[in-house]
């Protein structure tokens, strides 16, 4: 690998030459960041190009092994790439549950055939993956899930219902937790399977959210066929994978509020709306609230960095992802509440082009789900209490 400074120089030049201008502006709408998959409609040609040139270098998944099309970069080089992208405000070329969840799980637990089949498609953004975990009666208590998966000799047959399946309507494939041993105790009879959602037996009904959008769905599974080769890891050992995946999901959700570095910051918004008086923000309560948020936000960023560095050097505690998820999502909710306060009533407009059809309000409402999806804040606190602090262990 090139030394860091050479790599930085080369990367900077390459990004300068290859990142289209429209991909260097802050993303606002959902569609501004590409999620890939067969149903994706690129907002413009530049979005397509940006995905293609980055995927070709494996830089949609910079730290994945090069043999499956990943960037093959180590942590330090990946950091440099991220920094250089942030420097010019480059958007992520691809965002997906393939990259943040099922990909890492396949790299760790998948068979060679599974890796060959799925990893290159994830890197190239060809397949949109959705996550089938939650069920109507099993949310926080996920391990109680009831969707049945039976061995039919040359294939499996899946029956049951999933809910809150984000973007199932846009997806190509699902990674799905199913019960393969109905007699085993809770965690012991679960497996992780992969299947194409565009097959008979899969019925998807979008659900409307308080934000007005419909990004998640009810998913009904009736006699869905799963090929034998699409069970990941060992049968009935799916809980371990599910937990591994949840760790990745939590880190991803926790860091979601970090946003685009070229986005206007809260202080900038506030200066615009409220103005300065003697060089400081005219509304002193707002000034304090913003500063406290900025302080916590930087503290959070340093913590994500530190925990990553500790993991790399073999220090640190497990279950750190719960702490990051809890702190990061609560922080993001606070950011959006604060933003309402800064913008005033206009932030609550719901329709009208001048107000981007309620974008601010819709984004604010969407953040409320951050502390629910991927395991609620309360569940993260339970995990910290039990696994890190060892509280309530009976003696």
């Amino acid at each position: 690998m090139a030394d860091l400074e050479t790599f930085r120089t080369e990367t900077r030049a390459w990004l300068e030459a290859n990142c289209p201008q429209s991909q260097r502006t802050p993303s606002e709408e959902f569609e501004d960041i590409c999620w890939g998959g067969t149903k994706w409609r690129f907002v413009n040609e530049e979005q397509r190009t940006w995905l293609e040139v980055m995927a070709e270098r494996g830089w949609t998944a910079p730290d994945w092994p090069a043999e499956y099309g990943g960037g093959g970069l180590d942590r330090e080089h990946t950091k440099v790439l991220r920094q250089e992208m942030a420097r010019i405000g480059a958007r992520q070329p691809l965002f997906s549950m393939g990259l943040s969840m099922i990909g890492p799980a396949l790299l760790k637990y998948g068979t060679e055939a599974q890796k060959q089949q799925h990893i290159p498609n994830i890197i190239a953004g060809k397949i949109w993956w959705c996550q089938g975990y939650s069920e109507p009666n099993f949310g926080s208590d996920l391990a109680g899930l009831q969707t049945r998966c039976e061995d039919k000799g040359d294939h499996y047959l899946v029956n049951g219902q999933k809910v809150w399946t984000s973007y199932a309507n846009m997806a190509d494939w699902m990674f799905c937790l199913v019960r393969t041993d109905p007699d085993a105790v809770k965690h012991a009879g679960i497996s992780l399977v992969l299947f194409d959602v565009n097959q008979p037996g899969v019925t998807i009904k979008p659900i409307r959210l308080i934000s007005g959008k419909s990004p998640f769905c009810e998913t009904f599974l009736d006699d869905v066929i799963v090929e034998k080769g699409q069970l990941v890891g060992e049968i009935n050992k799916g809980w371990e994978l599910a937990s591994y995946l949840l760790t990745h999901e939590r880190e991803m959700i926790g860091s979601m509020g970090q946003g685009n570095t070229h986005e206007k910051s809260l202080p900038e918004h506030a200066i615009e709306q409220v103005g300065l008086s003697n060089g400081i923000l005219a509304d002193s309560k707002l000034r304090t609230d913003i500063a406290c948020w900025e302080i916590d936000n930087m503290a959070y960023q340093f913590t994500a960095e530190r925990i990553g560095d500790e993991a790399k050097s073999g220090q640190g505690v497990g279950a750190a992802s719960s702490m990051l998820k809890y702190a990061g999502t609560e922080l993001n909710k606070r950011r959006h509440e604060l933003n309402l306060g800064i913008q005033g009533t206009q932030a609550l407009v719901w329709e009208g082009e001048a107000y981007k059809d309620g974008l601010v309000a819709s984004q604010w409402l969407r953040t409320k789900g951050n502390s629910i999806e991927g395991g609620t804040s309360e569940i993260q606190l339970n995990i910290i209490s039990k696994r890190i602090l060892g509280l309530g262990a009976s003696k």
Partner: protein
Amino acid sequence: MALVLNEEQGMLKESAKGFLQENAPVGALRTLRDERDEEGFSRDLWRQMAAMGWAGILIDEAHGGLAFGHVGMGQVMEENGRTLTASPLLSTAILGVSAISIAGSADQKSELLPVIAEGKLLMTLAVDGGSRHNPLNVGVTATASGSGFSLSGEKQFVIDGHVADKIIVSARTSGSEGDSDGITLFVVDADAQGVEIDRIIMADSINSSMVRFVDVAVGADSVLGEPGKGAAVLQQVLDIGNAHLSAELVGLSLEVLERTVAYMNERKQYGVLIGSYQGLQHRAAHLFSEIELAKSVVIKVLQALDEGDDDVSMLASLAKAKVSEVATLATNEGVQLHGGIGMTDELEIGFFMKRARVAEQLLGDQRFHISRFAALNGY
């Protein structure tokens, strides 16, 4: 730079932990308090600390120090926060050393630093003219007199003032209170004619004092740095002080969390451990999460100090603001979750609460640093 300790820093932390827990646990502070010790710290302990090189952690090798840097010193301070050890580490080895290292002339450095490193000279920094920290509210004026100056006025809450051999004092040589121009730093002998020092017993039982200057005559050679330009030096020294106070407060918060969690796993009510109640678990878990944030801001500012980064002031205020908030939370929760016994002087948890508040106020509390953080960021 990776936000982790390197091997030597990790070893220093371990040895500091071992030494302080064995030789100066919270019980030692209690004894100093109960026996109304004249000096409020143990000279013998300080000799041992100096023998291990701690007095010179921030002093360069040419002047007899270890040149171990701020990350290293921060580890000792963090461990110090767990044991509440009374010593001149902050007044002398951090504030005094930093002021001289930053602004001292070659003569001042070679006269003072090696003796400090040997543990034979105690120093302090006298900053505040009032009860609320404000480095521009100087409280002492210096007027030209003969070839030197004459100092008059009062400094409040000067740590270790009554044991210090020399006091670094900020005084106004021109302008009026609130101006950053016109502040000059002086190194004054504590036993100089006209220096009056009253020890103040604080809630945390750690040394503080009021220092009055009544027409104290000092020579021109006692000026530290450039006359009138002391505010900038002071700023740097205060940033360093706040970074290390933050390190201390992180150690203190961690200790309180650990002791509280241990108690929750030992105390039973209604036939079960109180640690099995979710209402309490979540409070402890939230505190854990906050302390994780606090740890990160501290290592960040300590590294930035060692690297000489441009944003040190912003990071120092960030650290002090965040850590103060967290230490307040930790100590309040610590007392509450212990119940009645948490209110007793016998349990050590109260010592942590008292130290936390004093350390938070010292060199600027959470509010001061939130405001400074905002100002440094242009709003």
